[in-house]
């Protein structure tokens, strides 16, 4: 070990190991993670795949290597008592993302969220055992956040009891889903449903896109990979063009809406809120990922700052000039310390939102109480945006804090930046998400200020009563008649 780092470690004013337990929740979790890391990183997974340093691999080689790792990791996962344990390990091990990331992060959750019991029994076991590999196709080449603008069509044919799916325009080609390019053989496709010529809005459909034996695209399916990106190079984000693809009626995901035996469209009232629940969960997970990415970047930059020396140490003694560690410059500490704190702050927000998410889920399932969903949705949307914005800035600050060596791919920082800044765009572009939060705040202020005009009435759906809102920690302060007093901090 470099003596400069050893010297730093001796200066600690606290027990490092105990802080690790605190950050992770408890000692048991830390020990289990280390056990798994040893198994996957050191014993069972010798790095024999990498013939040249990873940063010199081509796009195709990165994908191939990620597939080999994914296969080995998920094979091993079935030997674990709780296969979910491996997900964290897999995320970290696939430094350019896994081609199976969307299968586990979105396809399986979407099956759980959108399928009825019968459909879950039909697809979930196969999905968990990787007999089918799926992705979630919503965004199109010409349409993103504005879901009503999506153009992919699903036309119901009651005579045949089938849906015909089409990409009617160039801009309606599905674009971006991870794993779609080369890996997935199934996709949950979001399409505008038409029943008897009546438009019924966006609904999810299970579409098989590749032959399960040959893995070749099925008739009517044109599918491929988008091309190299700033990060996530192994995620094979893809495109999908559907030309008169016929699927059975039973392939519409029917938990929230379905076509009955008489060919009539039926939908549950709370469909929109149930859909929000799935998005909300993913956004909360992104906040935890930000904490993790920032911790990686700041660990690299801080350790480097303790090893790298630059300039003359003003405290040089006995006429011998020595160089100063860059960590001893105030400007460097002003860059790094906030990043350490930000990682903790993101972790705190994640813990709080995950707890709120569990409460809301319980209210929905036990009492059919959906009232808290809009507030939680507004907060999780905005906090995903805030933490990814701050996270991307923090990683870039860390990269710059390492001078020229931070610009080398070997520093790991460009890769972390690519994967972090991507989160500013996926799962809701940040500007759109801030505006979702703003809309909730606007409604809250409007309620208090009583400034409403009649045209606004239809836009305002107060889902919590006034008392509940006042006591809600996150927005209670907005119910004051005057601005909070800042005491002796102001004139």
């Amino acid at each position, binding site marked *: 070990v470099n003596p400069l780092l050893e010297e730093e470690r001796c200066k600690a004013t606290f027990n490092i190991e105990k802080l690790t337990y605190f950050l992770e929740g408890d000692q048991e979790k830390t020990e289990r993670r280390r056990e798994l890391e040893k198994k996957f990183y050191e014993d069972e997974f010798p790095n024999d795949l990498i013939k040249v340093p990873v940063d010199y691999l081509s796009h195709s080689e990165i994908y191939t290597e990620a597939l080999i790792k994914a296969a080995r990791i998920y094979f091993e996962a079935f030997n674990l008592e709780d296969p979910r344990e491996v997900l964290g390990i897999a995320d970290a091990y696939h430094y350019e993302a896994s081609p199976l990331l969307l299968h586990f992060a979105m396809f399986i959750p979407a099956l759980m969220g959108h399928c009825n019991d019968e459909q879950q029994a039909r697809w979930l076991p196969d999905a968990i055992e990787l007999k089918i590999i799926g992705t979630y196709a919503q965004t199109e080449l010409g349409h993103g956040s504005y879901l009503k603008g999506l153009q992919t069509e699903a036309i119901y044919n009651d005579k045949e009891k089938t849906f015909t799916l089409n990409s009617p325009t160039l801009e309606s080609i599905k674009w971006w889903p991870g794993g779609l390019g080369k890996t997935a053989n199934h996709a949950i496709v979001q399409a505008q449903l038409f029943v008897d010529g009546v438009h019924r809005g966006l609904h999810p459909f299970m579409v098989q896109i590749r032959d399960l034996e040959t893995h070749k695209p099925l008739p009517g399916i044109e599918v491929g990979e988008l091309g190299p990106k700033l990060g996530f190079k192994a995620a094979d984000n893809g495109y999908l063009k559907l030309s008169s693809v016929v699927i059975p009626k039973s392939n519409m995901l029917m938990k929230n809406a379905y076509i009955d035996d008489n060919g009539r469209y039926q939908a549950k009232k709370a469909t929109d809120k149930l859909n929000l629940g799935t998005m909300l969960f993913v956004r909360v997970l992104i906040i935890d990922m930000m904490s993790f990415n920032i911790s990686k970047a700041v660990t690299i930059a801080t350790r480097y700052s303790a090893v790298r020396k630059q300039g003359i140490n003003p405290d040089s003694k006995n006429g011998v000039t020595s160089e100063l560690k860059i960590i001893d410059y105030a400007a460097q500490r002003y860059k790094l310390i906030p990043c350490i704190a930000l990682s903790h702050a993101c972790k705190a927000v994640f813990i709080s939102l995950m707890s709120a998410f569990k409460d809301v889920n319980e209210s929905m399932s036990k009492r059919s109480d959906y009232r808290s969903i809009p507030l939680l949705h507004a907060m999780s949307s905005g906090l995903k945006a805030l933490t990814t914005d701050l996270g991307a800035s923090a990683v870039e600050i860390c990269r710059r804090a390492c001078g020229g060596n931070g610009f080398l791919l070997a520093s790991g920082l460009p890769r972390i930046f690519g994967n972090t800044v991507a989160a500013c765009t996926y799962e809701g572009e940040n500007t759109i998400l801030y505006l979702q939060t703003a809309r909730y*705040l606007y409604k809250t202020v409007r309620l208090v200020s009583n400034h409403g005009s009649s045209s606004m009435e239809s836009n305002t759906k107060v889902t919590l009563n006034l008392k509940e809102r006042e006591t809600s920690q996150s927005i209670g302060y907005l119910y004051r008649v005057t601005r909070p007093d800042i005491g002796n901090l102001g004139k």
Partner: protein
Amino acid sequence: REGKIVSDVDGLLRLFSASAYYHCHFAFDQVDCRMRVQGQSFEKAWIECQVDLIKAAKSHLIYYMMIKYWEWVSSGEKYDLNISQVLKRLAYFYFGFIINENKGDFLAVGLDLTSIEQIQDELSTLMVELRNDMIPLVDAFDLHDMVLMSAIGCKDGNVYDRLFNLAKKAPLNQVDPNPSFIKYIKDLTKSKL
């Protein structure tokens, strides 16, 4: 001013809430004014006021993040005194840092220049106090070298050995001289053009 500002967390959280309150009400008034005075539709007014609305959302979210961050830090009190102390110091720094980097937001709600100068002083002091705990703080993230995949951030700190060894493995370094150089440039260096 008596006492430190950044460690008066209740006072700081009031300051963050005042800023969020101001920006939310300001954005509301902007939308409302366009609708009532200028006769714009809600949708049109909303689009025109997006900059203010985003600012309002950010202020609100930062306030929320600070509340949750402080709750988490406070939970360390029961766990370990030394850990609690360093986490609090770090949180004080972050509160002060946010104010220092976004002075305008807080001046708008009445924060005075003297307080800002005091916060800057306190940040300097905290940077000195936190200096010795910086490596231990990042070590506590306990990130495996395989997770970091970084030549300059590895746990053993042998930065220069790793950088040099990786450079030697570069494909361009496997053949020397490089055939492309011989094919395209070498003759050029001999030409008398």
